[in-house]
């Protein structure tokens, strides 16, 4: 178990380092001088030079990389080029919207996919199964942002149950905040739920063909008991992988959905930053997104060990 953990932690750190290098290099090759860009066309060269020194842009590349990384580790994301405010504060405000959105969407995904997948697998080939599979085909084909627009059209504009967009902030009350997130989360979750349902179903069907299910049946378990006691837990192993991948889709996909609902999340921040060439913000936000994806995959690896005893003792 300890060996497995150490292996995972090592690969986690390694991934983070390589990812940060990639992002830093990409941003490095961006043409143009941020300092010149910030001060506009008419700036005097010595003002630009002064700003470059202030932003630390005149340091050698390697030194700037380490400055950036050590800042990130300490929670100091640098100063925004355009707003002149700490990036960390800007990001923190936005995460308060984006992360709950992704988590809510994940919860909805799992809440739909698990029962639907298990139901379809246990009714294989019958009408219920075909219905679920047809629905998932449709669910996979629908672009989430379009689905979001339709939801807005129905629930906000026609029925006026919720507001069409915007976010009142958590200060307005947790309930109000959640209400503002519920439509975006549903829009985000449904296509992913369709995918996860299919994975759950096929993974379960694979398990139901395994010899140990037949052994369980020979002990006197009914089909339903064999499914719940023996197939579900084994089927979770491939399903976990997909959930890990999906969380990264949900985080990133949130950027698109935020546009539909005018939510002040990471997506909005990143677009503003791109259009104003506020590269330090782009760099940090991208790094944060990637780090959270890597972090989630790490969590999935740990979850594997909880589900599968073979990983705990493998030597």
């Amino acid at each position, binding site marked *: 178990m300890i060996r497995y953990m150490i292996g995972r932690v090592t690969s986690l750190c390694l991934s983070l380092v390589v990812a940060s290098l990639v992002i830093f290099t990409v*941003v490095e090759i*961006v043409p143009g001088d941020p300092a010149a860009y910030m001060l506009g066309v008419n700036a005097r060269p010595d003002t630009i030079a002064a700003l470059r020194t202030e932003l630390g842009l005149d340091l050698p590349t390697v030194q700037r990389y380490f400055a950036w990384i050590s800042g990130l580790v300490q929670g100091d994301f640098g100063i925004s080029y355009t707003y002149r405010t700490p990036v960390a504060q800007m990001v923190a405000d936005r995460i308060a919207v984006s992360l709950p959105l992704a988590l809510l969407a994940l919860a909805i995904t799992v809440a739909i996919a698990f029962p639907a997948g298990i139901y379809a697998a246990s009714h294989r080939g019958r009408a219920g199964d075909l219905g679920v599979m047809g629905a998932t085909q449709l669910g996979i084909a629908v*672009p989430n942002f379009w689905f979001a627009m339709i939801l807005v059209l129905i629930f906000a504009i026609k029925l006026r149950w919720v507001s069409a967009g915007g976010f009142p902030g958590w200060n307005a009350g947790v309930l109000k905040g959640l209400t503002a997130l519920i439509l975006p989360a549903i829009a985000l979750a449904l296509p992913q739920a369709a995918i996860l349902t299919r994975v759950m179903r096929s993974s379960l069907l694979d398990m139901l063909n395994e010899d140990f299910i037949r052994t369980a049946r020979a002990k006197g378990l009914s089909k339903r008991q064999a499914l719940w006691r023996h197939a579900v837990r084994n089927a979770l192993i491939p399903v976990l992988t997909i959930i890990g991948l999906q969380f990264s889709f949900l*985080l990133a*996909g949130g950027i698109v959905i935020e*546009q539909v609902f005018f939510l002040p999340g990471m997506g909005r921040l990143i677009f503003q930053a791109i259009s104003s060439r506020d590269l330090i913000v782009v760099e940090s936000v991208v790094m944060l997104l990637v780090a959270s994806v890597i972090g989630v995959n790490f969590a999935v690896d740990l979850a594997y060990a909880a589900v599968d005893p073979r990983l705990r003792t493998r030597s």
Partner: protein
Amino acid sequence: MVFVSGALISFFWTPYNIETLAIPQRLQTPTAAHWLGTDQLGRDIVSMIMMGARTSIAVALLAVGIGIGLGVPLGLIAAARRGSMLDEAIMRGNDLIFAFPSLVIAILITAVFGAGATNAIIAIGIFNIPVFARVTRGAALSFWSRDFILAARVAGKSPARISIEHILPNIANLLIVQSTIQFSLGILAEAALSYIGLGAQPPTASWGRMLADAQTLASIAPHVALVPGLAIVFTVLGLNLMGDGLRDLLDPRIRVART
């Protein structure tokens, strides 16, 4: 199929020129002259959909091309050298790319080079590489353990030759099926990217951009928002069903022989 042929026809003819604006005729509901109505700039929606299909298909196709072109060889190499440092390096590299959702790649590329349809192709293409590499490696590994590969090695064939001569033809079906899946995902991703303005730029027509334009108008002219969305749904649905059909067709597999 309808959309593919629409895209092909659009190379020669569209009912109206989408670059001509006809503000007086804007936001019309479907009429005999404009089957699906017009948008906020008076452009014919049928023509826009046809041109948009062209963009979507081209982007998704090229992105699948990138994925196959780089992912399949990497997967074959990893499988041929399973357990080696090279295999490990390729697979770790794959994991790393997986940590960058295609949207994030698109954001990075846009930040560096500015927006455009090429970005979408590269971003989706990069995302496709590890997908194909993994599928290829997994499938290839199951063949590497078969005795006929051992027989080919006894016949003195090199791993590269075995990969091309024995492995590739046997996993081709799987790759074709995966391609249709990635193709439909590519269409979805392209739509999302153009929707948020990281994909095709005006005046190139794109389903995603049509939706972005339509969003503010959804309450007054819902059809402008519905039509491109339905176009995406039907295209992707059609592709997925085709993929499923292909899989059933190409994969009666050894399962029959075993039972």
